[in-house]
Structure formats: C-alpha cells, structure tokens
C-alpha cells in the first residue's frame, strides 16, 4: 500500500510527512520528525511516556495513528519551553527533583500541563488520578505531585 501524506501542525509549526497506514503517531514523531522526547515504554497505552496533546486533548501517541494527525494540532514535550524559557512545570520539576531517570518525565510534564489548562486549581486527589496513566518507577510520585500542586499555585498567583 502506498504511504499516506499527512499535513498537520506540531508545536505550532506546519509539518508534512509520509507514513504507513498502520504507523503510530509516536513512531512518526520519533522516526520521521526526529522528535524523540516522547518515549515508548509499552506501546499499549499503559505507561503514558508517549503522552502528547491532540487539539489540547491528552492522548497516548502510541495509541494514535499518524494519519489521524491530518488537519489537527499536535503538541509534544519539545514545544513546552518557549525558546530558552522553561515552562513553570519544567522549572518546578527541576527544583523539586521530580524526576530521577527521566524516561517518564516528558509524558508527566505533557500530562500535567494538560491538567492545569483544564483545572488550574486541582486537589492532590485530582492530580493523582489525572496522572494515574503515567507510570513512574523511580520517584514514588511524591515529588511529582508536589511539583504539580506548587506550580499550579504559582501559576494561579501569577495570573491574578
């Protein structure tokens, strides 16, 4: 079968690529577009290391076909910082040591940003259930949850 031609937007930039009909968005990002910040931990949607947003909706890119990106807006970890200015979540993860090996970090950050866009004032329980689809084996989640809560508080304050 011929490859499909996909026109989409990734991190605000217009992008075109060719993909196999069965190719996942994760594979397209990593292999075709060179965006390897999204990680493959399971390829079954269980670990969240490949989290991206599709029109602001949080998805596992391993469960999405690359062809489905046609006409939509994709955002990945690579688009989170603005130039050399880190997103407040990225900065807080660094300050709070909310990462150890770092393999889950891209997905955690993308998922956390999606949460705060939807709910700028989440409870601890809301953070924990929102991030329940993002596995981390190193941290026990403690510092991640604290980092998200603190960033949310600071972002609310900054918005006032």
């Amino acid at each position: 079968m011929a490859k499909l031609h996909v026109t989409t937007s990734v991190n605000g930039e217009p992008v075109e690529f060719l993909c196999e009909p069965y190719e996942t968005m994760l594979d397209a990002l990593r292999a075709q577009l060179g965006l390897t910040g999204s990680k493959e931990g399971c390829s079954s949607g269980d670990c969240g290391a490949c989290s991206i947003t599709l029109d602001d909706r949080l998805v596992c890119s391993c469960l999405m076909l690359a062809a489905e990106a046609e006409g939509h807006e994709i955002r990945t970890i690579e688009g989170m910082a603005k130039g050399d200015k880190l997103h407040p979540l990225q900065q807080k993860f660094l300050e709070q040591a909310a990462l150890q090996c770092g393999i889950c970090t891209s997905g955690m950050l993308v998922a956390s940003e999606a949460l705060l866009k939807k709910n700028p004032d989440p409870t601890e329980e809301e953070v924990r259930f929102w991030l329940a689809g993002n596995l981390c084996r190193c941290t026990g989640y403690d510092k991640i949850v604290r980092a998200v809560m603190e960033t949310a508080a600071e972002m609310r304050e900054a918005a006032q």
Partner: protein
Amino acid sequence: MNVVNNKWIGQRTIRPDGVDKVTGRAAFAADTTMPGMIWGKVLRSPHPHARIRSINTAKAEALPGVKAVVTPRDVVDFTIEKGAVMLGIQDMRWMCRNVMAREKALFPGHPVAAVAATTEAIAAEACKLIEVDYEVLPWSIEIDDALKPDAPILHEWNKIDGKPSNIVGKIEVKKGDIAKGFAGADVVVERSFTTRPVHQGYIEPHACLISVAADGKTTIWSSSQGQFMVRAMTSMLTGIPQSDIRAIPAEIGGGFGGKTIVYLEPLATLLAKKSGRPVKMVMTREEVMRATGPTSGSKSTVRVGAKKDGTIVAAHGIFHLQAGAFPGSPIRGAVGCSFAPYDIPHVLSEGFDVCSNRSKVAAYRAPGAPIGAYAVECVLDELAEALKMDPLELRLKNAAKEGTKAAHGPVYPRIGYIETLEVAKSHPHYAAPLGKLQGRGVASGYWFNAGGESSAQVNITEDGNVVVTTGHPDIGGSRAGIANICAELLGIDYRRVSVIIGDTQTVGFSNLTGGSRVLFASSMVVTQATDKVINTLRERAAKIWEIDPEAVKWENGAAHPASPNAGQFEPLTLADLAEKAPSQGGPIGASVQLNTQGAEGGFGTHICDVEVDVDLGIVRVVRYTAVQDVGRAVHPSYVEGQLQGGVAQGIGWALNEEYIYNKDGKVDNPGFLDYRMPVCSDLPMLDCALVEVPNPKHPQGVKGVGEVPLVPVMAAVANAVYNALGRRFYALPMSPPKVSAELDAPTQQAAE
C-alpha cells in the same frame, strides 16, 4: 570529615542533566540513530523447556531486506566442563547461554536466533521463517515443583548426592550454635512465607545501537547500568577485543539492577559485524517481561527464639530462591541481610539457589534482602505480640550497634540503626490515631552497600570552569551529588561544574551502577582528583608569587597567602590561574582510579499505615514514613527520592505485583495493564526522615542509600494489614483476590 559548614553539600541544587530531561532532549538508547541503520529482532522460544535439535535459517536469509542472521553458533561458547569464567558476579557460561539458548531453550522467551533487516517489519517476518526443530521437554516453574524427586532437570550436569538436581547452589552464614540458643528461649515463633517473582519495572525497555567497522572497531550506544560491563560481556561473547569496543552509556531510563547484564548488545554486535551495517535493537514491553530478569520468587521459613524480656537468643532462616533458567539467584542478600540489624548470639541462615523454567533472574534493588527481611520482620512482629512488647521496643532491645559482629562477617563500625528506631518511635506518625479498618506496621532492613572500582577525571577549562568525568551511568541524580561535592571542595558555584559520564574509551574502568555504590565510590575518586587539582592550583599561585606552595591556601575558589607571613598578594581565582595556565606549566587536571573500600552497610526503619476495603479486598497504603541512616545527604532531594522510589516498589511487591503463569508455562501478564505496578493514585505522599550518621570511612561521610529503602517495605505493609484485620498473610502479593479469599475464609489461625 574534611567538609564542614558546607555551601553546596546538602543543598538541593539543580541537576546537571536536568534541563535536557525536562525538555525531551536527553538521548536515551532508543533515541539514537545512524546513517545506514538497520533493525534487529530476536526469535524466541515458545516453550518453557525444549532441546534444540536444529535451526534452519535458509528461508529467512533469502527474504529480501534481510541483511544478517545469527544463531547460537555465532556466540562464543563458554563450555560448562571448563568451569566458571566469572565477570563480576556473572558466570559467562550462563551468560552465553542466556543471550542465546545453546543446547536447550529453558524458558518461553529464551532467544534462539536473531535477524537484522532493513525494516523492523521485515526482521520480524524473517524470524517467522526460521525453522527450529525442538524436542519439547517437561518443565517446572514453581520452587516446590522444581524440588520434587521426579522434577524435570534443567541442567543434568548439576548433581547433589550423585543425583541430578535443580538446587544449583547453597550458602549459609552462621554464628554460635542455634541448638544451644533455642534451648534457652522462652518463646519461639516459626513461620513460613512465599513471595512471587516481580520485575524491576523500568519504564525504558532495553535498547542499543551498534556499529562494527570493517576493521572490527565497534561502537555501542546502549542503555545499561555499566558501559564497562557492556564492553566486557560483549567482548567475551563476540571475541572482539575490549580495546576495539567503545561502549557509550546512553541516558538510562531506569534499571534497579535489571540492566546489570547484557541481553541485546552481543546479538546486535554480531548482526552488525555480519551485515556491515549499524544495527538497532529495541525490546518490546512484552519481551522485557518475558525474557529479562525479574527477581526470584521465594519460599522461606524463619524461626526466632527470645527470652521473656525480649532478648533474642537464636534465629534460623531457610530461604529458597528461584534462579530461573541459570544459577545465580540472590541468596547472598537473603541470607546475609535478613538478621543483620540485630545482635543475636546464635544465627544460622541458609540459602538455596533453585533453577526452574523461567527467565534468569537479574539483580533487583538490594537483591534478595527484601525477601529475607519480609520473613524475618513479620516473625519479629509476631514475637513482639507474643511478648506483649512494642515492635520498635523489641527491635531496640536487640539492635546491632558499633562493635556488633554480624552473622555475615563484619564487625560494625559506628552505625545508625538505633537512631532510625528512635526517630521512628518518636515520629508523630507512630502516635497518630488510626481509623476503622486501618492498621499500622513497622519493619527494619539492611543492605550491605558496595565500594569497588571507580575512576574520575577533573579538568579545568581554559575559562576557569570545571568538567568532571566519571564512569557510572547516572540513574537517579548522582551527577547532582558529584557537582555539589566538587563545587564544595573548589569553593565555586556548583553551576560551574559540568559532570558527564564518560564512555569506556575516555574514562578509566568503573564498575557497575549497582550495590548503592555510585555516589560513595565516585565521590571518593572525585574528591581525590579535585584535591590534586587544588594542589596544582596552589603550586601555580606559589610560583607566580614566588613563595612556597605550603604558604598558599585554597579558599572560596581562589589561592590566598596562607598567613600574613607568606606575603601580601591579591587572591588568584580559578579563572586567573586557568588563564595563566599555558605559561605556568600547562593544562590543569587530574585523574584518579581507585578500588574503593569502606562502604558500610545501611539501615532503615519504616512505618506503614494501611486501610482495608473489606468488600473489595483492596489494601491501600494511607500513610508511610521511611527512616534511614543515609550517612551524609549530599543532595537531600535525590536521597529522599531513593527512599520514596524504593518504598513505592515495595508497596507494589506487597500488594499487587507478581508474575502469573498459564498452564503452558508462559507468563500471562507480560504488560503494564496486568502486571500492576503502583500508579500515582495508588499511593499517598511518602514521608522521609533522614538520619545522618556519617560513614567514618568516606571523605564526605557518604553511605549508599538506594537499596535499603526497598528492604523493609513488604513486612511493614504485611504487619500493618495484620494490625488492621487481625489476620496474617504469609504470601505475597496481598492482592484483592487473595485478600478477599482470606476474608471469606472462616476465622481460625489468627491466634494460633
């Protein structure tokens, strides 16, 4: 201790590799590519136990796009008869058979051939075309089955009393005479326990990219806990000399012990050599679960005797651990660590290494120790109850301290175990009220810790900053600790210290990231190298000032006259001296290689509260406090992170994680959906109390901290469940179906 009033040691600095990791730039093994790269795939045995009669690769080789096929014949054979060839704790006879089955396939998932092709899909298709003629054999997986008199034998050469056996190893540690000890006991508690195999659960699957040039020069990018281990094992299994193999450590996405051996690297090297193309191999999650090392399942019996006043007089442990396909289960950890927190006059601790048709175990965080501690610490809980003593009091009464001779050998120097008990006892958590169906448990744990070989280079850049190169992959933030220490010694801002992990051809030999050794050992070599650099800087200043080097001191990042007698000179900063280096003797730097000694063991005491949903059988941990003697918390956040991560893994082990086998002997839950590790909503905040009793044998007082925190957890959770329900569980995991079954059973053995 050469460092007091620290500016950087003990600070929560930003890790050197941090920005790369929060922006997605950090290069993990699977993120690497090369021009001309092709893909490797492994053909794996579908059978738990089968003799391999023949392998025919002709059809696979004929498939368009296939560039190379390798079979067991291509892997260097370490014959069994010639005896052990050890690399660290690994016997290459088993490694060569584990990376690719030789005479027999010993577990479902055991590699039997590998293919490299222009696409992953073609490589996978080619694997299906390889014809393997198997003679399927009977198999056993569980320890009890492998020990039956008529059990299928994995390794016929292994004999006990002249008969082939699956018991492939036995060790014991002994102190005093337990018969004498138990004779003097007023109370004796003996219980048996089982645990299931659990996986390390790193989120990053094994991956590598390997290129072999026409002259044999080999470059390996891979995810491992030791680039030197990768180089040595790949060399031994392929015949390429170590000097021709450059093993580059990619950022590693978790290891926990599971990446201390090779799986893919020798196969990818052979495929790259045969094809002349760079070969990339990445495992699927299913391959990780089926074919890489979980830790042992186990069965243990522990007997402890005490006087009425709580003095423990004797202890006996028997630990059987599943090794999987090849010898090497972590019996040393189970046997050596389980009684180590206590001063007991009579101890016998025996461990048996049992092979069965399951993937070969790999190390998992304090290998063996959590299994032993689970049994011992649960028995101590029952003993405390029988003696009507507080469980922390019982431990305090028998706690090991400076001068105690442990059954496994060492006489302890100044240790902080008693401090952990005291902190736990006075912690608000221990006195907090409990609600309905809630319970509290405590447990302690010990891990040996390790020193060993480390190398480091400290180089001053031309603009007066610092590059530190060490040889240990950084999994949990060790670069941050090294930056703190080097900055402290040089008296400069930590952001001026760049810490990188060198590859095998650019930094001296450094042993694995494992055994909780990295910060202990690497900070020792970095300290010595930095001290050498400081001496050079003092000599340079002395030369410029034309005074004696002894009259120059190094302080706050600059050379100063040591006293007014030395003369009046403006301080020379690191930048000044770097700038003057070309005219004053050349580059400034030092390298140090050591076989580090003095890694003393570590102790922790944990408090766990659970709440049980008796309708659904769900146990939830609602509060947790980990207390640990950490020596010196060079970077407290990453020390706490080690405690929190270990606790989370232990909670998974206690409550949910297990390998489930189907009737065909295959793992039935080889993915994250069914192999249920703790997710964010399963856990509470995990509180830490860091006790700092500096290691007297380390320049900064560092002790290993990474492994101790997994050791006490399962017992702490189990003791809490007992406290909540009045029923004891003697098997892990205490997962909902098992808790429900127990709750539905008639009450009987609670007060046996």
